[in-house]
């Protein structure tokens, strides 16, 4: 072999060898690793302070965060303003703040009860001004927290219930002791007072768990309002049965707002 050709092949081989590290990196990029990144320079990435939900050796339970002391409330959970201010600043709800004017309202908002002759009675109304925005908030929260069991329409056939039915059909032992959730539009819930529904969401009933740690107080009331709205939506009357003035006013509306019956 000529010297020039030999040199050429040597260079090509060295060049190809040089591509090997790139290939290895390429593989590494597409592989899941169970070990965290390896850093030569730490760059103050890990500092001696506690982020939320991190472990600590200081306390016996191994947590850096301290749990709620029973019977106490965090300061930011409660702001005392009057209801007019609430209407002006509905974003307070987003924070889960309970807005309380006085002791009576405090009991009613927090526990769904009022004192009648020294005895607790379930509220028959929602102690927070119910606006369209409030009910819409209830829908959002309902679709997050209630939908898995009770379903979007409240009929008690949510995704988790359907999955359990499937497990049961397959004869899987995982189906467990699941009880189909109650129909929120049936008489069982319809005749409950608002305060009692609030209490069920807060503290659970039967196999239903307590949701007071997952849903802030105001959102729980919003859900109650949405459940009521769902109930109302079931009372469907055909247009022909409506009194004439209403029927007439409906017909004069443009087709778009009436809904043309097509699914989008």
């Amino acid at each position, binding site marked *: 072999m000529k010297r020039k050709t030999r040199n050429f092949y040597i260079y090509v081989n060295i060049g190809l060898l*040089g591509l090997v*590290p*790139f290939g290895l*990196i390429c593989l*590494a*990029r*597409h*592989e*899941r*690793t*169970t*070990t*965290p*990144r*390896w*850093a030569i320079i730490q*760059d*103050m*990435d*890990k*500092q001696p*302070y506690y*982020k*939320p*939900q991190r*472990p600590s050796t200081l306390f016996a*339970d*191994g*947590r850096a965060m301290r749990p709620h002391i029973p019977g106490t409330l965090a300061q930011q959970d409660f702001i005392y303003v009057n209801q007019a201010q609430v209407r002006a600043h509905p974003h307070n709800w*987003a*924070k*889960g703040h309970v807005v309380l004017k006085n002791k009576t309202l405090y009991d009613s908002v927090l526990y769904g009860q009022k004192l009648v002759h020294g005895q607790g009675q379930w509220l028959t109304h929602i102690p927070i001004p119910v606006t369209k925005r409030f009910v819409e908030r209830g829908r*959002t929260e309902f*679709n*997050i*927290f209630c*939908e*898995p069991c009770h379903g979007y329409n409240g009929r008690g056939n949510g*995704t*988790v219930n359907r*999955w*359990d039915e499937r*497990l049961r059909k397959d004869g899987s*032992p*995982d*189906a*467990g*002791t*699941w*009880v189909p959730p109650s129909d929120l539009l049936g008489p069982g819930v319809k005749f409950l007072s608002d305060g009692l529904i609030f209490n069920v969401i807060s503290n659970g009933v039967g*196999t239903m*768990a*307590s949701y007071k*740690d*997952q*849903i*802030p107080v105001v959102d729980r009331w919003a859900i109650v309002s949405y459940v009521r709205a769902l109930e109302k939506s079931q009372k469907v009357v055909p247009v022909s049965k409506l009194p004439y003035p209403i029927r007439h006013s409906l017909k004069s509306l443009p087709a778009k707002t009436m809904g043309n019956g097509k699914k*989008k």
Partner: protein
Amino acid sequence: MSERPFFVFPKWSDWLTKVFVISTLIIPIYLVILIAYGCSARTLNVNYAPKQPVPYSHAFHAGKLGINCEYCHTDVKRAAYAALPPTQTCLNCHSLIAAKSRKLQAIRNSYGTGKKSLAGLSVPWIKVDDLPDYVYFNHEAHVNAGISCLVCHGKVNEMTRVYQAKPFNMAWCLNCHRNPAPYLRPRNEVTNMSWTGKNKVKLAKDLGLTVATLPHNLGKYLMKRYHIPSVKLLTDCETCHR
């Protein structure tokens, strides 16, 4: 006859030229490219998928069952930190369904129905998407500004075991902080993993508008509506580092 030059490199010294070119040009350039590629955030950070104490599958719970992200990560709209759920949340369903499953041993231990020595202790979940300690990320601010979970965490509803989907380096953060408009969506679609914004009717409903009055440029419109600060403030050091 001309005068002889003072010094001439001998013929054998030709190889020095080659050595010089290779050592000062080719090798450094090669090393720079190799290190930049090998040590890039994309290579180092992405695809970190630690084995968790419970083989919880987001692909099943969030994907197949369609449980909303917020069912477990309840605080995401209200707090800086999107908290992991307490053991109680798992047991909302798992006290009834698959209550005896071997995979849920760590959950039962934490709840107090398993090993007595571990009762009341947290499940030792391992954090996947972790930012450096000098960055103060706020979930509340981002989620309420219409930034989807998807933007930072990837398609979690398709992950059997959660892995880090994005590099989480500063250049990547700034990508969006310099031009947030294309990443925005209506607030109530934040946890929707399949949102495209192409369904005009749905979009109008989300924004409380009608199809006819939909804004031409959704990103710009949402910037205004959600009061997203100027790029100058978004790229200020103090916005993320205190």
